[in-house]
């Protein structure tokens, strides 16, 4: 396990390194920079003010120097300063990340606790009426775009209950009820799609397991359904379910970009959008690195979990 972990971490770091180069180049490939944004329609290019600003931000340096400067900082844990607001990028990104993390984890919990039981029930009662009903939910959930669902929820709740979420995000440690009131609709909008996906996946796993030899044998031995289900089926499909949970978490991190903008949440997705619009390179780079790191960590965690739940993986490695 120890050497495996080292290898795995090494690979992750290499991925992070390559991503950082990609991130650095991609943000600069978009035409227009922060200087043009600041000066807007106030003067043409090549003006003295433009040169002065470009020097201020170090944009007059060759690209590789700019990269090495930045990388040097990153290795020391310093992501630089926002060009637009001057705050330390690490602080801005971490603050936004906590919002996204809370939203992501709560959505994941919602999707898991709704999706997995529904999928298990549907799989157990394949072809019955309850299965049809759950599948109908799955199909509806999977086909509703997140943005549309969010909008519909916002408008429906507003006209039914004359209520809409508070507009300033407060940390759960400061004001829990206000925090939950802010997040409930975003969690539903993101979570319904993922719950449907999770439910559909779980159902397939269960249905698939029923045609496996070990299940047939167990049933033929005369074991009660309850035991077959909990001791045989559930244990065997667990590894697939955990893998899928990792995928869902990464999917949710993608979905937050849209939902944070709709519900005015100061998370990582919205930070990325506004920083890209302002061409605030240090913030874009910092936020993207954070996204890359979270994806790497999620994958790492999923791999670790395999070891815990599946003895076969332990033996192989």
């Amino acid at each position, binding site marked *: 396990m120890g050497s495996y972990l080292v290898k795995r971490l090494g690979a992750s770091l290499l991925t992070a390194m390559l991503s950082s180069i990609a991130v650095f180049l991609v943000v600069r490939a978009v035409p227009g920079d922060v200087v043009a944004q600041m000066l807007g329609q106030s003067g043409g290019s090549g003006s003295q*003010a433009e040169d002065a600003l470009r020097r201020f931000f170090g944009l007059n340096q060759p690209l590789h120097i700019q990269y090495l400067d930045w990388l040097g900082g990153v290795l020391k844990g310093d992501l630089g300063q926002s060009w637009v607001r001057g705050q330390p990028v690490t602080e801005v990104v971490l603050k936004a990340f906590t919002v996204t993390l809370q939203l992501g984890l709560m959505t994941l919990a919602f999707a898991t606790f709704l999706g997995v039981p529904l999928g298990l029930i549907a799989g157990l009662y394949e072809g019955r009426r309850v299965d049809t009903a759950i599948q109908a939910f799955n199909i509806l959930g999977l086909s509703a775009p997140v943005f549309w669902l969010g909008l519909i929820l916002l408008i429906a709740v507003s006209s039914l209950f004359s209520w*809409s979420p508070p507009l300033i995000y407060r940390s759960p440690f400061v004001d829990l009820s206000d925090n939950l009131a802010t997040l409930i609709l975003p969690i539903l909008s993101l979570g319904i799609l993922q719950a449907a996906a999770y439910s559909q996946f779980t159902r397939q796993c269960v249905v698939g397991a029923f045609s496996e030899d070990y299940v047939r044998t167990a049933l033929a031995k005369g074991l009660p359904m309850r035991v077959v289900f909990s001791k045989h089926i559930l244990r065997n499909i667990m590894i697939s379910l955990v893998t899928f949970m990792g995928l869902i978490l990464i999917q949710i991190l993608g979905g937050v970009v849209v939902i944070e903008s709709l519900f*005015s949440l100061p998370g990582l997705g919205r*930070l990325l959008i506004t920083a890209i619009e302002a061409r605030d390179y240090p913030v874009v780079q910092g936020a993207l690195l954070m996204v890359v790191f979270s994806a790497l960590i999620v994958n790492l965690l999923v791999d670790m979990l395999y070891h815990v739940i599946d003895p076969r993986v332990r033996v192989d490695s």
Partner: protein
Amino acid sequence: MHNNCLLSNIRKLGVAAAVAVSALTMTTSAFAQDAKPYGPDPEEEIRGGNLMVGSLVEPPSLDPFHDGSDGRIRVTTLVYQGLFYEAMSGPVPLLAKSYEVSEDGLTYTFNLREGIKFHTGQDMTAADVKYSYDYIRDPDNGSPGAGDYTTVESIEVVDDYTVVFNLDQPNASLPITLGNKYGAVVPAGTFDDPGARAALNRESVGTGPFKISAFETNSYLELTAFEDYWQEGLPYLDAVTYLFMPNNAALLVALRNERIDFAQLGRPQDSQQLKGVDHLNIQRWESLGQKPLDLDSDYGPLQDVRVRQAIALTVDKEEILQASLGGYGTVIHTIPAAMQDTWGVPVEELEFQTRDVERAKELMAEAGYADGVEMDLTTINGYDWMDPAAVTLREQLSEIGITLNIKRVDLGVWIDNFRNHNMGLTFNDWPTLPDPNMLFFRHFHQRPEGADFRNWNNEEASALLREGRSTSDPEKRKEIYAEFQKILDRTVPTIMLFSADIVTVANDKVHNLYQHPTGWYFGLAKTQLEE
């Protein structure tokens, strides 16, 4: 429709004031009070409260010296002040008390108000004024406002409350340049500290009625009343909180549920959805903004002036206004709506402002495009009005054989093209100050004095712009700018389409609301909130 009539009747009365159309009670007093900074005085005494303002735009930063974005200007007008306030009738002294101009127009002497304090607690004196304007006019400091000060040669402190600006050529727009758009009066030495620019996002150093108390990225900005503010009794509110909401639908929902008290709508036609909501007051205000179709004189077929003229003759502005804003605006010709009475030219005296498709076809044929031609039209992501406008324009121009390919780009890309004089045919959207020099000079003067984004390179027009800037007699100025507008009409570097009305929605607890035609939040200095 009824509102439209009223608006145009008021305009016919020759009163260039921004008027809240639905607030009929204030029609007469509003004109007299236009000259008062921050709008009309309230009739009752209501104090306190934190006004929640929904805003679709988040200021990139709060630095009045280096951030040229309109989103920044809107809010910092409540925090920072210049020597003058931008009233529609002309500049009104703000931090200045009065001023004198020398005979030759080269020396401006400003007498400053006494007893003004900065948010830092210091007293404001002439040395601070000199420092602030010296800082902004030095191009090495990278301010987007630097270009407005090229005529200033030096600034001298005479005594604590007198400061003299020496010019190398007359500039009749100097007072309005010393307004609230770029820069402000800040304590001398503010930028000596390299961290000062960033610090402006946390703490303000201005003289305005509000100071910054919190600014959270992608969340909110809270301003609190400045207790030592120099104007007696102002502001009435304890605080103003701007909530940044990047989405129209969420803004409307928040207004309905009283999560916010006040907002300017991103799409004026959205006010239809709020009609009949009891606690909301919807008001329409005249605006200094303009939405034009810009034509780059170096772009393909547009190099031929006849093609540009043909487009001008074919565009049906009213139809585009209906399609893109549901009619919430005023069709314009060579100047924004709010400036038409003071500085505009009657449409009968303009040659290419009345639709004439037959003549347009002839011009196209003369230019060698009888069989039609293809062009790209650029629109900007996030500017909702441009999409319907583009489709409507494509239909209109197909009548004279022009095939438009609509290209939608991100704002950053668009600004880049614009600044690099590579804009092609595009929609644009920009606000101005109520002064023709501020409106035209930078955009239309030949390079290098102006930016001439549209590659117009018109010598005759540039000469008029220089003459207009150095002329202070209002009658003569009007003639010069009328002549300029006729050249604009004949040679078509831009086709001004319409000025959109500013539509505000406020909870009925909000009193004494006033919306400045720039779209900036000046009025909140006198706004009141009933508890």
